[in-house]
């Protein structure tokens, strides 16, 4: 497939020029590095917007009783926090990393469809702004939860005027993600350096390839579901309206057919980055490269056939409950393979503990905890107790914050020196790590106890018996939130010059044995791989050669 890369029949107008001048550069850019930067900065901004909403939630829950906000606004905060973090922060951040890294790692000059790439980004901005605008509408932002379940979400009291805007925003975000996914697949299939076979690709590239297929399969399903909400509300259809012969539970099935793969869309690239960073700081090739690729594929496949573990309590037939219970448990197998491989990579390695590695190690430990609570909830009869309690909140925050978010931080520390040519301040990086790693546990661990004791999720007030752990959780939340300002400081400081020490092309010892980007100059020039590299590093795939 890649044998024809050398036959470019035309060149982009900007192949021989630098970027456009001034602000215009960022608006019209088709350069994968510029677009990557835009995605990453936008995601970082949304991380703080979504984070502020979390601070409102934790402030209100600091004590029992209603303190700061009214209940409808509180519910808008939980809904919008989730939507902003999922669609505005985590997903765009990984697309940003894909834009920067995939072409560099596979020896391609740019993404396959650069103009569409620009459009994906600006549609994302439009979608998120539209969503945010609902905060200022009569009746407030959507507040029925990020799952947008009918009939709740269709009731005037819960949505006011916001629903159609939220739905249209989902359409824009969906189209943006699908275009991004198409671009990633086309780039990986058609633009690889001729020397790079599929089984030579770094795992970050592999995990993104598989994630992109998940996106293409499930974003349209979500778009379909919310469109039917819209027609139910405004055009008198009754897809989900029992009074008209429809079925609200059908929405849950459609939503989770999207929703479960969606959580893997946020975790598979996480796995890819971890598999890329850990070998560099363990100074060993990745353990079990091929099994990592197969495990990623297996997780992606399984993610399509387990969705109803989110709805054990709707009253499915027993056979259905059993099927979804056992299918869900199967996911632990490939996930276990991965955790084993990361650990085995570190085993007897000459490890060093720079900030990116610290975040990766914390990820391996803390993500595994999220996996274990997942297994607990997969047991259908037991989930009847856990469902819709803080136990769920604890589970998915362990899989998202010390996993996806920590790995995004690790990626920032790992690649910023390459991108900017400047070294970040290691002392502040380590401080950021320790504050985050400790406070994230103070924040989320007690939520397991609250859930087991029966505290429901998405409620602004609670019984006094839950007071102590909520206060502790909130304190952890405030420390965690404040610590992230250190990351913001480090990013700005590194872009502006960092420690002042000039980084080498390799940045990290022997990194060029692991992946192609470290063979390029630091900072990475505006145009790279205009002629594809003749050889590709194979250290990371030693066991397959």
């Amino acid at each position, binding site marked *: 497939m890649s044998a024809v890369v050398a036959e470019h029949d*035309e060149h982009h107008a900007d192949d021989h020029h630098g970027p456009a001048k001034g602000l215009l550069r960022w608006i019209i850019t088709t350069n994968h590095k510029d677009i990557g930067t835009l995605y990453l900065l936008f995601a970082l901004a949304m991380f703080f917007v979504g984070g502020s909403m979390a601070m409102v939630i934790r402030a209100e829950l600091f004590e029992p009783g209603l303190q700061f906000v009214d209940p409808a606004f509180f519910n808008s905060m939980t809904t919008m926090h989730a939507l902003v973090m999922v669609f505005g922060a985590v997903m765009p951040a990984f697309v940003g990393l894909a834009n920067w890294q995939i072409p560099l790692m596979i020896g391609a000059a740019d993404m396959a469809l650069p103009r569409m790439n620009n459009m994906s980004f600006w549609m994302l901005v439009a979608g998120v702004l539209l969503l945010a605008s609902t905060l200022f509408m009569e009746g407030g932002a959507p507040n029925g939860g990020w799952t947008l379940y009918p009939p709740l979400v269709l009731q005037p009291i819960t949505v006011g005027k916001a629903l159609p805007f939220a739905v249209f925003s989902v359409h824009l975000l969906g189209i943006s993600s*699908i275009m991004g996914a198409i671009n990633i*697949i086309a780039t990986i*299939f058609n633009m690889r350096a001729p020397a790079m076979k599929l089984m030579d690709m770094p795992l970050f590239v592999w995990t993104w390839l598989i994630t992109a297929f998940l996106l293409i*399969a499930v974003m349209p399903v979500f778009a379909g579901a919310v469109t039917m909400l819209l027609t139910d509300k405004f055009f008198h259809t009754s897809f989900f309206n029992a009074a008209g012969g429809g079925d609200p539970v059908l929405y849950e099935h459609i939503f989770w057919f999207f929703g479960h793969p969606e959580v893997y869309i946020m975790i598979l690239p996480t796995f890819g980055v971890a598999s890329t960073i850990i070998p560099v700081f363990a100074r060993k090739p990745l353990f079990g490269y091929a099994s990592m690729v197969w495990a990623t594929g297996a997780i992606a496949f399984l993610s399509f056939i387990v969705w109803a573990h989110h709805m054990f309590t709707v009253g499915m037939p027993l056979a259905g409950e059993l099927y979804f219970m056992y299918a869900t448990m199967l996911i632990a197998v490939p996930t276990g393979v991965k955790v084993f491989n990361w650990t085995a990579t570190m085993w007897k390695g000459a490890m060093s503990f720079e900030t990116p590695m610290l975040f990766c190690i914390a990820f391996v430990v803390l993500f595994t905890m999220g996996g274990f609570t997942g297994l607990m909830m997969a047991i259908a009869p037991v989930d009847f107790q856990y469902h819709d309690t803080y136990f769920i909140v604890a589970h998915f925050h362990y899989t998202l914050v010390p996993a996806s978010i920590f790995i995004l931080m690790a990626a920032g520390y790992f690649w910023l020196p390459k991108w900017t040519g400047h070294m970040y301040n290691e002392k502040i990086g380590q401080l950021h790590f320790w504050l985050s790693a400790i406070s994230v546990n103070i924040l989320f661990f007690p939520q397991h106890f609250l859930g087991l004791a029966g505290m429901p999720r998405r409620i602004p007030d609670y019984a006094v018996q839950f007071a102590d752990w909520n206060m502790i959780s909130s304190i952890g939340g405030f420390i965690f939130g404040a610590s992230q300002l250190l990351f913001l400081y480090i990013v700005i400081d590194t872009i502006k010059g960092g420690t002042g020490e000039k980084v080498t092309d390799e940045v990290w010892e022997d990194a060029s044995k692991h992946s192609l980007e470290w063979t390029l100059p630091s900072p990475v020039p505006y145009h790279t791989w205009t002629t594809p590299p003749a050889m590709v590093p194979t250290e990371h795939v030693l066991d397959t050669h």
Partner: protein
Amino acid sequence: MQCTLKLNMTTKNKNILTAVILIAIALSFYIIAVKQAISQ
């Protein structure tokens, strides 16, 4: 350049073909989801 699907297809054509195929897959998932709901 009239040979569209021959072996010596340019990278650019391949990219566009890949995009078209993937859009078709996305659309079919959309249609299946809605069709499933209508037939309930």
